[in-house]
């Protein structure tokens, strides 16, 4: 048994509430947590839903072909009537397989294709932003916690600084700057707005985790195994990533699973405010367009809202379950 395997049991292995049986004896805490998670029905249903959304996002083009719909192919002249309402499907006509979620008023674009690709945008942005912010948060938290002295002070100062920046204000301010820079190159502008959105969501997502990790590291770094590693002459990066990091898996996983849904909601909010991604479908934008049609054409608004609510809800429940599974002190 290596040093790290012993210590992965966390700070207080003695008070593990699970009854000790012969079977459990050889299992790592990670394994125990996974077992708990797998036996949690709610968590499994939520995981299934999330997986479904992930598959929709990945296979959006295939799904569109399967349903025979096409993204942004509407022709307002032939697909909408004189009141700009769609000529097939809801709200004025019955369900049709030609457009299962109906067509968008004004433009005649297909809403199912819009929804599939909206899921793609949502998950793409949220996943990348959350991964980046988690990596940044973990690395800075480790360094801050372990470095004592000025390194800790600088990073703590940065954390405080970023916490004071108003998220919405910065997001709204950056959008016109991008337009100014790439105004004559529409493709570049669309890509830039996507990258900028991911960057914004990332730089506003790492502080909480960094603080958490820093606190954990400060309590861990005084433990004997770290002292021992230090005395043995282990390089600092090895201590950080081989000795400390494995002990922080639980808070990292929990933080990741809870910030993912928050980021999805933030993405939709920014899209609704008109400062999110442009040039590609997004649930937030669909909601923005649909709200004035709600009275006559509720499905237009419900589809993206259901998408966001179900995905965020499933992710939140899953996150809670993961936290419960990793935290031996909590009870259901």
């Amino acid at each position, binding site marked *: 048994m290596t040093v790290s395997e012993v210590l992965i049991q966390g700070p207080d292995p003695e008070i593990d509430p699970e009854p000790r049986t012969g079977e459990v004896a050889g299992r790592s805490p990670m394994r125990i947590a996974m077992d708990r998670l797998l036996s949690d029905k709610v968590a499994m249903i939520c995981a299934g839903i999330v997986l479904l959304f992930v598959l929709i996002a990945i296979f959006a083009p295939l799904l569109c072909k399967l349903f025979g719909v096409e993204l942004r192919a509407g022709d307002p002249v032939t697909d909408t009537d004189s009141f700009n309402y769609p000529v097939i499907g809801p709200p004025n006509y019955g369900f049709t397989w030609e457009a299962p979620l109906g067509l968008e008023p004004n433009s005649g674009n297909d809403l199912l294709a819009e929804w599939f690709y909206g899921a793609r945008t949502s998950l793409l942005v949220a996943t990348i932003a959350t991964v980046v912010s988690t990596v940044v948060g973990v690395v800075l938290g480790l360094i801050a916690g372990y470095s004592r002295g000025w390194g800790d002070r600088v990073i703590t100062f940065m954390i405080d600084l970023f916490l004071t920046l108003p998220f919405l204000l910065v997001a709204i301010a950056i959008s016109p700057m991008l337009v100014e820079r790439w105004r004559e190159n529409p493709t570049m*502008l669309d890509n830039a707005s996507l990258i900028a959105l991911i960057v914004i969501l990332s730089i506003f997502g790492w502080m909480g985790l960094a603080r958490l990790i820093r606190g954990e590291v400060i309590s861990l770094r005084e433990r004997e195994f770290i002292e021992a590693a230090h005395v043995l002459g282990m390089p600092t990066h090895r201590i950080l990533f081989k000795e400390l990091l494995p002990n922080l898996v639980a808070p990292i996983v929990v933080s990741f699973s809870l910030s993912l849904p928050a980021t999805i909601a933030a993405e939709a909010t920014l899209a609704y405010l008109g400062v999110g991604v442009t040039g590609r479908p997004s649930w937030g934008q669909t909601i923005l367009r649909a709200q004035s*049609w709600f009275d006559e054409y509720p499905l237009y608004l419900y589809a993206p809202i259901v998408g966001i609510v179900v995905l965020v809800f499933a992710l939140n429940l899953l996150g809670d379950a993961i936290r419960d599974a990793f935290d031996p002190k909590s009870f259901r």
Partner: protein
Amino acid sequence: MRLKRTVIAASAIAALTLTAACGGGDGGGEDPAGEFKAGGGAGAGKDATAEGPLEIPSDAKMGGTISVVTNNAPATLDPTRTYYTDSGAIMSGLVTRSLTQYVYDEKSGDSILVPDLATDLGQVSEDGLTWTFTLKDGIKYEDGTDVTAEDVVYGIKRSFATDTLTDGPTYQTTFFKDGQKYKGPFADTDAELQKLPDYDASAGWYGGEDYDGVEADGNKVIIHLAQAFPELDYYASFPVFSPIPKAKDKDPLAYESHPMATGPYKFESYKPGTSLKLVKNDQWAADTDPGRFQAVDAFDFKFAQDTAKIENQILGDKGAAQSMIGYDDVTPPTYKSIKEKAPENLIEGTSPCTYMYRPDQTKITDKKVREAISWAYPYQAAWKASGEIVGVTIQPGTSLLPPGTAGRVEYQYPKGQDGQTTDPEKAKALLKEAGAEGFEIKWYYERDDEQSVAKKDQMVKGFEAAGFKATPVASTDETYRDDQSNLDAPINLRYGGWCSDWPSGGSWFPAQWIGSNANKPGMPNPTNFKEADADAKQAEILKMDADKVPAAWGEFDKWMQETYMVEINAGYDANAFIKGSLVGGVVNDPVKGMPSFSIMYLK
């Protein structure tokens, strides 16, 4: 007058800056009835003898408050700077009285010009260079002091300070005596004059109270002109010609916070961009005013409101919403449901404006390419994508002068282009002829406005199908207007519109397509159109007798398009707004394309 300005652009089209107002009709003629084609009377009729009081309809219940809710917000309510359709309708309709005014005439369904503060529509001298307006007796400000001719004169002088009081109408600087030299009453020292932009020491600028272009003589206001201005009586209906007491104008930029009322309502509170509360002005005398009445206790304006919220409240028609009225164009879903549920609460009408795509003549030099654009532009798709209801908020356009303009010549150019036909094959053929296949069209769109983006997508599709290379250039809601009027903008196609300021083509062509304005900062000539023969023709028309002018402008419209294909007509503007069931007296004032506040009451 410019079209009302949107704060949160509800549609790309509403966000345009249009210079617009009193349009169409008989160019300065004296025929009181005028003749109007269907779809567009626009305030050409006159009645110099109209007298107050105006009768309040019998179904009116006196008192109550009318709430006016809108997505727009007027930038300013200073009478001198009032040059947008909404601020003009509010100020002229309710608060400030000018020398003349428009009043809605039920018989013709049109607004006609009648006297307001003046006893008639002005007397013009033999040479056409001196106008005299005589003020009625007994007109008082809201505080009970008398309105004098000096105050009207001061108000007019104030309008020459275009650098301090920006955005107002500027015809006085063209037509009035010393209009280019006189800089208003505020800059009365050389040091102050030198601070003004474009100061030119040799131009003989002067400021201060000493200006003899306008004078007061007893109760007469006398205006001296540099060149004949037969339509001055129409222009005299602008709030520029309202009295402003000098004593209350110590800080000119702050005057808008409480302009002295002469009309039936006065300011109670005004929060720029947010709200305006008007209450009864007890000093206003009904028998002096042929165009307004005082049937409700107060008007409560709420600006910059959410469109969906406004429409849902008015559609619901419950409680306070019954006495609500909006003046924004309705969205398609609301149009449909109100048409079914309560058609009497929907008011439709015209405003004399034309939207245009305007190729830059210095960048798109080949006429064939410009014609190709008119075939490539996806009229229907672009309108629908941007949320317009074709036939309700927009009408397909042919001639540049909108319907209802006297002397207007109906023509189609290129041949067969009825203002809504897209034919990529014709465009391709023209491009091939011009040897310009794959010509790059660049234009601005508002990246943060969903409808502008949707319209852009349709335009890209349309242009590409017709063999153009389409490059939309991103702008934002906030910077769109400035970007478009930037001379060095990296685009070759601009979008804009124009409405008449008074009923003559004379407020169209010399204002927009005169060569001397080409290639100037701010793009006063939005296409940079500069052709010697066109300028010569315009100069010739300006010298014609007043009764021949309208027809000459109509012919010029046709000639200019056929010879040079200057503009691509993207439709005539039209209005559709909604009201609560208790609001009465609501008609579309075709002069401004706004509800007629001056004759509104509660049932």
